[in-house]
């Protein structure tokens, strides 16, 4: 098994664990954390393909990873802000009780 294959398998495993967490946990904060883990798995894929690609000097994988990290940071800030707003309104962070969009 080559090294690139093992990196890709590790990334797929992290992605699946994050997906399972985002789909099954009841706390909204952990759902957001699961999405962060999925984004991190995608970053690992970008960097592995950059390292094993034919033109590593082009830096495309690194650029994609940097922009993906910035997007993930913005998403985390806005997501946690939404969770705070929902908590102030409904006094819970349980996603199974958040079933109406009208306040």
């Amino acid at each position, binding site marked *: 098994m080559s090294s690139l294959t093992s990196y890709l398998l590790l990334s797929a495993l992290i992605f699946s664990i994050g997906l399972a967490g985002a789909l099954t946990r009841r*706390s909204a904060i952990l759902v957001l954390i699961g999405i962060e883990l999925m984004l991190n798995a995608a970053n690992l894929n970008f960097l592995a393909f950059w390292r094993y690609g034919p033109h590593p000097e082009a830096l495309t994988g690194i650029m994609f990873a940097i922009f993906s990290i910035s997007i993930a940071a913005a998403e985390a800030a806005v997501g946690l*802000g939404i969770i705070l707003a929902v908590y102030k309104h409904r006094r819970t962070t349980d996603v199974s009780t958040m079933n109406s969009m009208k306040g």
Partner: protein
Amino acid sequence: MTVPFLILAVLTVVGTVAAMTLRNLIHCVLALTLSFAGLAALYLQLGAQFVGFVQILVYVGAVAILAVFVIMMTRGAGPGLHPIFSSFWTVGSLVAAGVFAILAWAICASNLSSRILPPQTEAAVRPIGDALMHQYVLPLEIMGLLLTAALIGAVVLAMQEKRRTP
């Protein structure tokens, strides 16, 4: 597959599983920082020094601490919700397992394993900065705009609502 990769992979996967299964939310975030640090070490091992340190700064330093703040402000610390998994957790786990099976099958069936490691290229910070300032300057500006919008949006969302006066 080398020994450092195996150690880092086990560390990262253990941290990820613990972050998704523990009951106390604070413990979940602590396990999550372990997982993020393991991923940063994997990035460093791939030769992407800048991304590795950015990962530590942004994820371990900012996102995890932000999550801890939100957990404290929503009183999520302590035992938390009584059943930690939702009622349809079997379906969710099955979907995730299916996704992993399909991804692993696609990776193992491809001819990627014949790819040999190219010689180590130095991804120093200077070429990254050059590329950001010349080739990728428009995406960089758009990213700045997006981060500003996200900052304002997060502040507006989390701001105390003023009681309307008639």
